């Protein structure tokens, strides 16, 4: 049996040393694996970690990829901080995108960009409603929110699949499951840079991230609601004595995180896809769980964690393009990286105790 015992005091030194050690271990094992498989190890590491920063448009690609991860991760942070385990951000993302898409497609000629405010709001509502189901089941019937939110992901996936094959299918698509293209007013444009033009796919949706991060920081650290969330997570008993209503906090964080996931869905589809299709998410909702923890459940941390994950994903693509390294190999490396980062994080806070397990 292995038991984790919380350390009385977290050493300040280890807060700095642990991540460095994690990276050293990752690089060591990376070198080992790449050498063993016959790839130039240093070039591989360069492709994965450095090449995504080697051109300005590649950096913009990182931001585009990180954008939904950071938005969803920030919402999940609120849940996880208060010990509410929302695993269904993927489904909330889809339902947000779907409701916004439905509204966008209902006004096929709209051109004003103010319409985006409505679609984004719709996205928030769509995601929040989807998260409301586990919230209400948890608070009224004490149903486990992990299971409910997770299973609703699959419901959402099948639902959008049904919608784009049936009701919202473009009649001109030869039976292929695609909706009509969004009207101009529902599209998020790419950002033009004077003298350069567009940088990859960099779009105005990124601005939302730059608003969200400071806002959520203030919310978590400077408001009473944020305080309640923190207390509920770290000391549920204390929260009870203080008279904080656990149920209302649970519902609030689920609605907020579902809503944010929904907004991420709207931004992703409006900026990068421009129509509804059977798949709109590609696992962002699940990856964001890792992002939230990698960012130590803090808004700034999540910003960086989102960028790290996006970088490694892009680097993996680059490694394949330039060196022909299969995705399975870079995926393995990604796993090693996350393993060590999270291990380092855990060992900072907990001691491991080996003991004879009772059967």
């Amino acid at each position, binding site marked *: 049996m292995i038991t984790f015992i919380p350390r009385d005091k977290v050493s300040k030194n280890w807060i700095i040393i642990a991540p460095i050690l994690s990276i050293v271990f990752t690089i060591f094992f990376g070198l080992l694996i790449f050498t063993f498989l016959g790839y130039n190890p240093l070039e591989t590491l360069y492709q994965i970690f450095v090449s995504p920063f080697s051109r300005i*448009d*590649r950096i913009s*690609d990182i931001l*585009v*990829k990180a954008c939904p991860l950071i938005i969803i991760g920030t919402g999940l942070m609120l849940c996880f901080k208060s010990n509410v385990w929302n695993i269904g951000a993927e489904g909330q993302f889809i339902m947000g995108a779907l409701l916004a898409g439905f509204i966008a497609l209902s006004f096929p000629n709209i051109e004003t960009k103010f319409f985006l405010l409505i679609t984004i709001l719709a996205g928030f509502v769509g995601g929040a409603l989807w998260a409301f189901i586990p919230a209400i089941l948890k608070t009224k019937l004490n149903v486990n929110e992990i299971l409910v939110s997770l299973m609703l992901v699959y419901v959402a996936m099948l639902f959008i*699949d049904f919608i784009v*094959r*049936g009701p919202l*299918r473009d009649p001109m698509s*030869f*039976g*292929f*499951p695609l909706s009509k293209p969004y009207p101009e007013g529902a599209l998020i444009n790419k950002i033009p840079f004077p003298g350069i033009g567009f940088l*990859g*796919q960099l779009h105005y949706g990124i601005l939302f991230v730059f608003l969200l991060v400071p806002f959520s920081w203030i919310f978590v650290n400077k408001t009473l609601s944020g305080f309640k969330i923190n207390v509920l997570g770290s000391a549920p008993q204390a929260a009870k004595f203080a008279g904080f209503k656990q149920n209302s906090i649970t519902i609030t964080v689920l609605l907020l995180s579902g809503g944010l996931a929904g907004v991420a869905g709207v931004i*992703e589809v409006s900026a*990068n*896809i*421009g*129509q509804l*299709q059977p*798949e*709109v998410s*590609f696992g962002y909702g699940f990856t964001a769980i890792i992002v939230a923890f990698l960012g130590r459940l803090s808004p700034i941390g999540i910003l960086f964690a989102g960028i790290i994950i996006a970088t490694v994903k*892009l680097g993996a*693509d*680059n490694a*394949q*393009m*330039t060196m*022909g390294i*299969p*995705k*399975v190999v870079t995926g393995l490396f990604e796993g090693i990286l996350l393993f060590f980062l999270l291990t380092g994080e855990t060992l900072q806070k907990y001691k491991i105790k080996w003991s004879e397990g009772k059967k």
Partner: protein
Amino acid sequence: MIKFCTRIFSLITLGISVLFFVISSAFAGSPTKVGFVYLTTPGDHGWTYAHELGKQMVEKRFGKDVKVSVVENVPEGPDATRVIRELAKQGNEIIFTTSFGYMEPTLKVAKEFPNIKFEHITGYKRSKNVATGNIRFYEGRYIQGVVAGLMTKTNKIGYIGAYPIAEVIMGINAFAQGLKSVNKDASISVIWANTWYDPVKEADAAKVHIAEGADVLAQHTDSPAMLQIAEKNGAMGFGQSTDMSAFAPKAQLFASINNWGPYYIKKIEELRNGKWNTGDGPNHWPGNVWGGIKSDMLVISKFQNMPANVAQKAQEALDGIKSGKINIFAGPLIDNTGKEIIPAGKALDDGALWGMNYYLQGVNGKVPG
């Protein structure tokens, strides 16, 4: 001072022009750079593996004259746009995007890189520098129908469809035409798996078909699961995309093999000779290259596990399609509700195939949606 500056300036200009000359001459003899985008990892069977085999043919044919870059496992969304753009930025001169969902991403990136050629597989939208390529998969299904009609004892054929889109429906109808040509009593039942690849669902669908009495199975999905179930239960079936006899040595009658190599090679050759074009096919159906058995893009594997007379009939059907003697969708065509689609003496054209939303006689049920 001014003189000095001009001298420096002219030196720099000279240096740069020399540099450019060196670079451009170095590039003159450089290999053609070719990019591929794959939906999944190739593995050892199915859709992407068939593209991988095509890519290997390209490498074998051109050797050092081409440099191939591949990106596998690219989801059909924003990632595709990014990956295709990156391939374009890295100087690939022709980029093959090998799944339907790359249609919009390919068009988007192509607009930004007017000098790079793009080949989108199975799409229906084209532009100045985006051509499309597809295979007449349905031709192989006609032969499957012939073999199934001769092999079945229960007169029940089980068909596993991926999604009810025109491409799949024309495959079912072609199968029905082949079936009808040899056996008027047999009929086809379709189960929609609603996936291109899901071994579990495909296996379940196969089990249902067998439980309902089907003894010959066909599929428009990608995994060998159906054949494996057939093998276990003494039924027969056909391989999809690549030869699957290794998975079901006793059950596979033959496989329709997607052979992308010749198409890739032809397009790359055209590019190297400056003759690449997007063809002049109508703009409303997939494939201005839409090749089948005749152009070697669809290959029929060895006929096996069947009596010699059946193999002979199958061979006749194959030869007939190759020579053009058999027109699979020649009238009179009647759908399974009794409505006449096209009278005798006429035949459906390619555009009509891409509008198919009905079953022909010999297929049970109706098209969902």
